[in-house]
């Protein structure tokens, strides 16, 4: 049984058919990436898995349970966490408060311990503990969004374009952290436009084009594929 199984999913925005019957799996311990151009339907897919959007048909099961009738705020305690597109940290709250919100569903006694772990992973956040999140740089906000998601101690962490808008050096850093998280046992579903970086860390990958999965394989296979090179890797 896979940790996450998406089957023949169809999602609409009114009359717009954004996701046209996609199926994919994430096994426990894997990093799986979903790559695709802007507008391909990557964010729509993640939002549907986390319950923010409702599909017209298809199924999603997480850890053996069908999730589609469960409201998003309850899915968190099943072990599902999402780092949203554009980070979506709480800009008017402090770094520490953002992390506390990440642990909203956890027992209060555990929060300090989780926070210490997040600060170990992101020492920059520790230094800015009392700072308002709106005053952080883009890279720091991305770290905060990731740290916040980790506070819920997820089984599966879904990341929506963590490299968006970041300088190359910061992108490297963020991907290093993703690799670290993976090594320490978190399963990861990574959505990216930055195909090169995503394929370099992924165990398996899927290519999403206008709502359909057109290619799939291991990260290495796709990085070597002519079609992917042409469309996503600049030649």
């Amino acid at each position, binding site marked *: 049984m896979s940790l996450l199984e998406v089957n023949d999913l169809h999602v609409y925005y009114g009359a717009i058919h954004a996701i046209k019957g996609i199926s994919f799996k994430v096994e426990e311990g894997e990093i799986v990436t979903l790559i695709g151009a802007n507008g391909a339907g990557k964010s729509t897919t993640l939002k549907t898995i986390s*319950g*923010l959007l409702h599909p017209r048909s298809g199924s999603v099961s997480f850890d053996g349970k069908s999730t589609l009738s469960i409201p998003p*705020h309850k899915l968190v305690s099943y072990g599902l966490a999402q780092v*949203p597109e554009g980070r*979506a940290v*709480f800009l008017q709250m402090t770094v520490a408060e953002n992390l506390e*919100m*990440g642990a*909203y569903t956890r027992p209060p006694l555990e929060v300090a311990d989780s926070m210490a772990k997040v600060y170990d992973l992101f020492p920059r956040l520790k230094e800015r503990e009392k700072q308002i999140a709106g005053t952080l740089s883009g890279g720091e906000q991305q770290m905060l969004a990731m740290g*916040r998601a980790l506070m819920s101690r997820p089984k599966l962490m879904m990341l929506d374009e963590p490299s968006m808008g970041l300088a190359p050096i910061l992108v490297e850093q963020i991907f290093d952290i993703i690799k670290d998280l993976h090594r320490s046992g978190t399963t990861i579903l990574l959505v990216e436009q930055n195909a090169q970086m995503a394929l370099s860390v992924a165990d398996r990958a899927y290519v999403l084009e206008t709502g359909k999965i057109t290619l799939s394989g291991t990260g290495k296979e796709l990085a070597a594929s002519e079609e992917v090179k042409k469309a996503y890797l600049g030649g």
Partner: protein
Amino acid sequence: MEFLSYLISGICLGSVYAIIALGYTMVYGIAKMLNFAHGDVIMIGGYISFCGFAYMGLNGWVSLLLAMVVCTVLGILIEGLAYKPLRQATSLAVLITAIGVSYLLQNSALLIWGATPKVYAPLIPLVGPDGAPNALRLFDGQLSISYMSIVTMAACVIIMALLTWFTSRTKLGKAMRACSENKAAAQLMGINVNRTISMTFAIGSALAAIAGVLLCSFNPTLMPTTGSMPGIRAFTAAVFGGIGSIPGAFLGGLLIGIIEAMAKAYISTQLANSVVFSVLIIVLLVRPAGLLGKYVPEKV
């Protein structure tokens, strides 16, 4: 001395406005809607407490508690029945619904309690059993501040302090701030957004009940329309201070109260409203987000 006594009555009036404005601003912050019916919840609070002491023989303070409980439930019901189904609707649809709820409350009150004004007995009688005024006398009795005024001002400060503590220190209070900023992200944290909005209405409505009792203690004629004008002034106060901001509502409420009292004393009673709203317009021209509000450009 005269000035001082006008100032105190302004602060006192302003304290009531501030308590109402806090309810407006908290609800606006989280639900992004103007709860037009907030003023009428004040009126219901007034009637419930009136029923408490006039018909049920309860003590004034117990009546206040009763009004708070009833208004809390009422606030949760209004939100759940009227506003929650409109979460995805346009803000115009929500505003019109809120105006509808306001009329519904006023007409229900008319049906239940009739059109004849009730004479409200202040929470703390203005005159003691010995016939002497229940007031603190200062400067050889030249300045007298009623105990009712002192309680009102103290209530406002305590409420403000409690709300500040609540939103900055408690889990639910922080969840409210998270929801006011980004509902989707709040849900991804595991926060039940609907329940949090409902709790905000509960708090706002309990505050409205307190405001109702204080207001009627100063203006003892209680009618189904009693809440409308103070509601509008408090809304003005919330906008004046910066809608969505808790300290803004406090400051705005006090200033509107003081301006109103001064205008009544030194300009004219009839012109007091015009003065209040002129000041509002001028402030909004200079600072569109209000005194303490943060101007946040619409995201495109």
